[in-house]
């Protein structure tokens, strides 16, 4: 029998791998704006509910791997992840007690911040800045949050406790 700690470790790795696969799942070209930021969502969950399990180093490596996967400049996703993780660490005690829809609103803002840094890096790389479109992922991520939250909760309770 695996120790609970090791189990949790597997759940975390599995959730991040799944998020990475979903983040490159092919969508029609015009639908790509609506893709939620899966990796960021999962990272936010782990920081909110297990603030001592995910380190900045891990997030940084994860972000770099996502950059490699998506073919964007190195550092784009890590930057967003680290900034959002820091905000989460400062606020997790309060946000944990929010109702699920208030949490969703909070997620909208967090993903929006990550999108800002994404757009900043893409702008430096010479891609034209989009209009309001860059907030679409924030919207879909916020809508997905209750599902993601419930599923990860179930996973954690099943394999950790």
């Amino acid at each position: 029998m695996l120790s609970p700690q090791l189990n949790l470790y597997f759940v975390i790795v599995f959730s991040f791998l799944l998020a990475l696969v979903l983040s490159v799942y092919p969508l029609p070209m015009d639908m790509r704006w609506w893709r939620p930021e899966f990796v960021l969502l999962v990272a936010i969950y782990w920081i909110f509910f297990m603030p001592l399990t995910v380190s900045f180093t891990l997030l940084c490596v994860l972000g770099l791997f996502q950059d490699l996967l998506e073919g964007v400049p190195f550092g784009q996703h890590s930057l967003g992840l680290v900034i959002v993780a820091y905000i989460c660490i400062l606020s997790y005690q309060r946000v944990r007690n929010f109702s699920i829809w208030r949490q969703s609103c909070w997620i909208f803002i967090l993903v929006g911040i990550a999108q800002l840094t994404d757009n900043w890096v893409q702008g430096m790389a010479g891609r034209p800045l989009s209009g309001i479109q860059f907030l679409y992922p924030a919207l879909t991520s916020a809508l997905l949050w209750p599902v993601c939250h419930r599923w990860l909760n179930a996973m954690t309770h099943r394999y950790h406790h």
Partner: protein
Amino acid sequence: MGLNSTGELTIKPLFARGSSATSRAFLFILITMALVVVGLYTDRLEPLREKLAQLVAPFYQITDVPSRVNDWRKDTFVSEVDLKIENEALRTELLIHQRKLQQLASLAAENVRLRQLLNASQMLQDTVLIAELIGVSPNPLSHKVIINRGTKDGAFKGQPVLDAFGLMGQVIDVGETSSTVLLISDSTHAIPVQVNRNGVRAIAEGTGDLNSLSLRHVSANTDIRAGDLLVSSGLGERFPVGYPVAEVLQVVRDPGKAFLTVIAKPMARLDRSRHLLLVFADRDKASVPGALSLPAAAATSTTSSSSSTSSVGGGR
């Protein structure tokens, strides 16, 4: 997370003793910003990216599984009647194309003779390799796709990519079994073209919109109008001559501007084609395993042997 000194698996606490979350966050933000700047303004990280490209392929192969299952389902669970109907349709289509090809063969031969009279360049066959699309870049600001051919199949950086309708783009990253293709509609892509009707040359730039390219620096008195076909001009020596690139949709003459605003629509179905063709210009069919040959495109060499005429005429 990692192993501690006794080899036991531990999860690293976020609040490590000695440094607060704030200073650690600050440090990591600085590091990632430095990485972004180094990555964008120098090419020092490129070798690293090429080395790590191996890790990426499995992810795209996994995400390709549903569409493969769908293909398999379509191939397997299909009624005999449907197959017969499809077969019939394909046969008719083949007949039409063969008729066109007969004409094309004699036209090609005539073209070569005329070019010899003019002492100009000679028509050659391009060798192509069929590739399948396995992924689309998730970044909505870039237009890149991932295909299932790599160095193993002879793909190389800068290789032109076509679909059945026109030019799609070029290979920009090559892995062992997969490579990345930059589409012509990407905002960082530009391709030299000419108007098929009169040979006017221009540069077609991607706009970041799948359905439009814009022509750069077309002077106000240029003979170009809506409906003109733009074909690759072969200048720049990256794309072979004569493949359809786009069709002019709109020409706006604004007296306040120094140049025309020309909007063109790509001929290739950039967001729908799943089977692409990798072009090996000026290369022998035998040197590329699994390749087919296409009668098209002019090469730049100047020869006048009669054997080349027959080889073009017999092109499959």
